[in-house]
């Protein structure tokens, strides 16, 4: 059992949770404005693919991430247009966007790179590992926190920024107002449509980063449907975290931890299926206890346009 829990487990938890955290924050900002974002998985996949594709052409990992962000944001704009302007059912649209993303990335993978299954190139540079100067020199903590890809740190920064945004800023309370009651918000002169678009676009950016962490941070390759449902786990993290940035951080941390530990448990005699099941079971149990008002109203919106 000694090998199961050691300090490097925290390190790998941080690495595993980063994509969940970023996409989960994207889900949270949507849910705060009354949009139930089922398309996180598709957005992430798009980000992961564009990151690798752009990297293959430009040979510059930073430019690749920028292109991934731009491309995924355009993709999320289509998603937003369907939901906000065309009033299409949010869940159906989200599922369709996921299908579209799988279809487009797989299609592009085969037509552009002419490979089936996975694309990688040994000469391709992934994201660098950052050693944080001050923290690195602190004995124990340095080992725990330092040596991650920049996107991991960015995830933590985004959590704090979003927390401040919703807690302190006027714009943040406008976002909340739209989520709680769009009609009332509109009567107060808040531009509901613009704010909902903004939230969907921001979630596009965050999901692009989450996808880039998968394809450029953890490994340097793209494989068909490589998110493998992580977008849905991120959605679950949003729900469990009650659309609160700190809550999303904690719940994605929990899921990152279960993912990290399930890799280790493979060496022992515990069926991995059960450890993989944990996030979903925990979320169902948590829903008995917590009732997320934002999520409920977002869901109400989605159900309202369902028929």
């Amino acid at each position, binding site marked *: 059992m000694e090998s199961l829990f050691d300090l490097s487990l925290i390190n790998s938890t941080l690495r595993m949770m980063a994509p969940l955290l970023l996409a989960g924050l994207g889900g949270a900002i949507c849910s705060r404005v009354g949009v139930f974002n089922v398309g996180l998985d598709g957005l992430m996949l798009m980000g992961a693919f564009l990151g690798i594709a752009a990297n293959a052409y430009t040979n510059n990992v930073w430019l690749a991430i920028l292109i991934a962000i731009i491309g995924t944001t355009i993709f999320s704009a289509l998603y937003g247009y369907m939901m906000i302007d*065309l009033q*299409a059912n949010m*869940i159906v649209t989200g599922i369709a*966007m996921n*299908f579209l993303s*799988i*279809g487009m990335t797989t*299609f592009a993978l085969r037509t552009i790179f002419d490979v089936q299954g996975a694309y990688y190139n040994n000469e391709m540079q992934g994201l660098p590992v950052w050693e944080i100067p001050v923290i690195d020199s602190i004995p124990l903590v340095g080992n725990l926190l330092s040596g991650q890809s920049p996107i991991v740190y960015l995830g933590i920064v985004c959590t704090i920024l979003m927390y401040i945004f919703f807690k302190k800023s006027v714009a943040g309370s406008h976002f909340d107002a739209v989520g709680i009651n769009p009609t009332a918000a509109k009567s107060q002169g808040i531009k509901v449509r613009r704010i909902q678009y903004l939230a969907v676009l921001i979630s596009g950016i965050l999901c692009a980063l989450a996808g880039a962490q998968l394809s450029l941070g953890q490994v340097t390759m793209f494989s068909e449907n490589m998110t493998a449902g992580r977008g849905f786990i991120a959605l679950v993290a949003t729900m469990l975290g009650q659309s609160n940035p700190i809550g999303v951080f904690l719940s994605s941390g929990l899921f990152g931890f279960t993912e990290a530990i399930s890799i280790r448990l493979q060496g022992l005699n515990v069926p991995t*299926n059960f450890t993989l099941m944990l996030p979903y079971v925990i979320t169902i149990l948590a829903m008995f206890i917590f009732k997320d008002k934002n999520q409920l109203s977002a869901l109400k919106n989605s159900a309202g346009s369902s*028929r």
Partner: protein
Amino acid sequence: MNKLKTNATLFIQPILAVIVGLLVGTIAIMLSGESVAVTYQEMWKGAFGNLYFLTNTLERAIPIILAGLGVAFAFRAGFFNLGAEGQLVMGAVTTAIITVSLPFQGLLNMIISIVAGMLIAGLYSFFAGWMEQRFQINLLISTLLLNYIAVLFAGYLVSEPFRDTSSAGGVPQTVMVDQASRLPKLITGMNLHYGFVIAIILAIVIAFIMKRTTFGYEVKMLGQNVFFAQYGGINRKKTMFISLLISGMLAGLAGSVEVLGMHYRFIEGALSNPQFAWTGLMAALLANSNPVGTTIVAIFLAALDTGSLGVERNTDVPNSISGIIQAVLILFISAKFSFEFLKQRKKEGK
């Protein structure tokens, strides 16, 4: 006359969606540098080209039809059952385990194992309904989460206690179903089995229930207007539970017949990876939850799948073309509310 008109508008949208979907497909084909005519020709051949491909398409449609009917039934009552995948897998794995555990083979074995699969799947769906009713746990979220739990749990069952250990390594799977307990093929040498007959009969039965029975009327009322339905004395709780139970049982049946008619065992991932349940959900949505319509659309979507496999065999266009076309179709269809919305706004403007 008026009825004819509403029927016409009902059909225009899906047909337009199909055209747009194929247009986007055309663009994708052009991007990949193949001839559009040749590709669509190959797609047609792969789906309906000869008896073998035609029966293959119909076979693929079986689980999609059944899962779609299940989803459509719940939709009609106003409940979004996103859990068809989990229910399908639960039904399949139960059937696969029961059929090889029973001491006798033949028709009775078949019936018992299918009914058991349907029951487990129905209860799985019922459970989500119960959580919504009792604890206000949103059905959308719970059914979605239960999918993962079902797929992982079934994966555990076939990789540990019920694994076929005779073949070492490879994908986890259960022991082969006995020859006598398999669903017979409709035509010898072809993949199509009696599950197709079951699916078609059920589609007609459900259409009948919806149209002609009191229960069907209650379900429809509940789906259209909860308050009116309750005012009219319809028991929301009871109708919800029954419709979710039926919905889950149909999805479970989809898995059961696929096991007994096609794979002859439960293979991990063989039912969740082709996304039968999600395709069924699309079929139900495209057909506006009409049972007969769902069946037709399911066959169409299955044809896109099998057709694109033909495309991949004979051209350089990858089979993910069907995924793109399907997604565009569903996006276009789901935007339908907006057209009515726009029309209304125009009227108000005048």
